[in-house]
């Protein structure tokens, strides 16, 4: 019995992740990360089919310049395919999280990701950050990838971040989903039950802005229409690496950002 257990363990091998001291896990070639706009290729007189192609009003034109709001973006690449000039391209960059909502809007090629760091949170919870996770209309995918960070290879606990079973034990609230009308009260009550200082993290495009549920009767347009949000992590769903990077960036622990 014991021998069988040890043998199976040996066969499974070691899967310790090099990240954050070594390189991050390699993302697939087709992974759509941070989008960028090549300003020179984007023509001001273009009929901008990219705007029509977007289902969630993420692509807009302001003063002749195309902008993409990654907080509304489903990363479906429809705008990239619709663009006749090849001006829009999705890079493989996983860093997407931002502390300020307006930092999610991009109008050029990204050089580095948006700023996620929160100085107060870093001071208070830099070494230990307990999160209460609530799904408020999420489809199950964001929950799954938030959960993945707790599996052994990602091992969220080594960064001092852990999920807790009660808001009373929490320093912050991580919300997925647009906040359905039916979850509005529950979210407010959970938020109120967390002792201050407290921080709110919106994970997934629908939590950031409503996403594909934008202006639907049964949903709110994202978490910040119900309670204040301190960190936005877009994606549909965001890759576990994007979520982890966002959390670490928020607490000032991100490799390459200190």
């Amino acid at each position: 019995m014991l021998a069988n257990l040890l043998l199976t363990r040996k066969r499974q091998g070691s899967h310790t992740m090099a990240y954050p001291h070594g390189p991050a896990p390699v993302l697939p070639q087709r992974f759509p990360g941070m989008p960028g706009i090549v300003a020179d290729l984007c023509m001001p007189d273009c009929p901008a089919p990219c705007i029509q192609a977007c289902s969630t009003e993420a692509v807009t034109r302001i003063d002749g310049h195309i902008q993409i709001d990654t907080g509304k973006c489903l990363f479906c690449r429809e705008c990239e395919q619709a663009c006749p000039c090849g001006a829009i391209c999705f890079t493989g960059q996983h860093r997407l999280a931002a502390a300020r909502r307006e930092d999610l809007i991009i109008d050029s090629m990204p050089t580095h990701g948006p700023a996620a760091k929160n100085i107060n949170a870093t001071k208070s919870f830099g070494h230990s950050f307990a999160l209460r996770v609530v799904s408020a209309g999420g489809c199950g995918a964001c929950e799954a990838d938030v959960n993945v960070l707790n599996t052994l290879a990602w091992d969220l606990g080594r960064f001092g971040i852990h999920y807790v079973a009660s808001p009373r034990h929490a320093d912050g609230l991580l919300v997925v989903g647009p906040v359905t009308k039916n979850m509005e009260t529950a979210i407010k009550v959970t938020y109120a039950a967390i002792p201050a200082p407290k921080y709110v993290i919106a994970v997934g495009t629908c939590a950031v802005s409503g996403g594909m549920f934008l202006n639907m009767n049964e949903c709110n347009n994202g978490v910040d229409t119900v309670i204040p949000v301190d960190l936005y992590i877009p994606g549909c769903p965001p890759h576990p690496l994007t979520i982890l990077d966002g959390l670490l960036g928020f607490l000032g622990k991100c490799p390459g950002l200190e």
Partner: protein
Amino acid sequence: MPTPCLIVHNGQAFALADVPCIPEEAFRTWICASTTAGMRMIALWCVQGKDRSMLYGLLAHDKNQSLRLCSCLVGQEYPALTPECTQAHLFEREIFEELGIMPKDHPWLKPVRFPQTSHHPQKTIGEMDFFQIKGEEIHEVGVGPVHAGVIEPGHFRFQCQGEKVKHLEISLGYQHRGIEQTLCTATASMRRHLMEVASGDTTVGHTWAYCQSMEGLGGCKVPPRAQAIRAIALELERLACHIGDMGAISGDIGFLPTSSFCGRIRGDVLNMTATICGNRFSRGLLRPGGVAYDIDQSMAENLLLRLDKAWKETDGALQLFWDTPSVLGRLEHTGMISLETALDLGFVGPVARACGLKQDVRQNFPSPPYDAHTIPLVTGKLGGVFDRAKVRTKEINHSVAFIREMLTRLPKSSIMAPMPSLPAKRMVVSLTEGWRGEICHIAQTGPEGTLAHYKIIDPSFHNWFAVAYCLRDEGISDFPLCNKSFNLSYCGFDL
């Protein structure tokens, strides 16, 4: 004289005028007699008209592999089918809540999802008359909507005598986003996005059902290569979820090795999906007409290598699980559902198969490529946690073999066919076998060839009652284990 119902085929459209509309009494007799004779209710839904509404019933004869459809006109109320046909209970509650059409003498007419536009007198979520057992020894346990773990919201109300659960009532609706209601007015590309999130861990299952319904209505022939890639994605989805759940079951009984191994291997399978389309949950892969991403030779070889590795590791983790007596002790005779209950309440998917029912869309109502490449149907015997885990373990094996076969022999063709516009006044029934069971989409076009009505039935809609049922006379501490052996979707139910 037999009732003149219409025999329909999975994914093949028919004219609305072909659906027989029979008197209400005859419809009732047809439903009750057929379900008593062993047929299964896939769907019961209502399309609202000006004065009278059209009530449709769709039944499956799993043995004969046929789907039967019939309809009748109803006014603001009609005698409920539920007293004679238990399978109709939730559908009738749904019809009342959405349209206000009263199924008279329904014994359990409670709210379903608490939408903003509800016709039910109990409109506020959380405020519901829960069934209560009275007595000195009885205590009540309420859990949710916010749970201790990282899962979706729902409310569970237990009536317990000591440690024993006498009754469990599950009240959902917290995830209700109004997907069905929005579909008919949404753009085609928005519809696809909404289908992808109907139940986010079943993206391929739901999106395939949606694409198949559009292709059926429009008369579009999907290229064989696209069909194969869809099937690979569907089976990868099944693989990831079954492996993840086997790990979770293992975790809930405190057997940590398999829990740890499976949690990681699930990620490897999701990453294979991400290799195909860039997204771990198959977002953007399926489109009406075909698929958006091809699998070339080198990718197929790479996926095969990774599949073999994941399979070896899963096999090892699960063999360890099944070889451990203390694990078996916790699984056996826990969360039992009898064959009769499964038939009466119309359960689907691995839950029904664990009870011994031969019920799988891939076998009974296959659409390509499952018609030519069959997947063996796995059944259990006793219908408890043990059998559900066993069925899932065997399905993992079959899915791996299927994906391997598909990847080695990908048909040569294009991956996308042009999607014609939708013809007027037609209807289609589209079924797929998601990892939780039968997914049913029913689409109907109006006089202008636009979508007039769209109905989604997630397997969880049938199966949530199974969770409540299997907890009867079970220790309350076994709830997590029982629940995990189903792992139903809240948002698939709530839509």
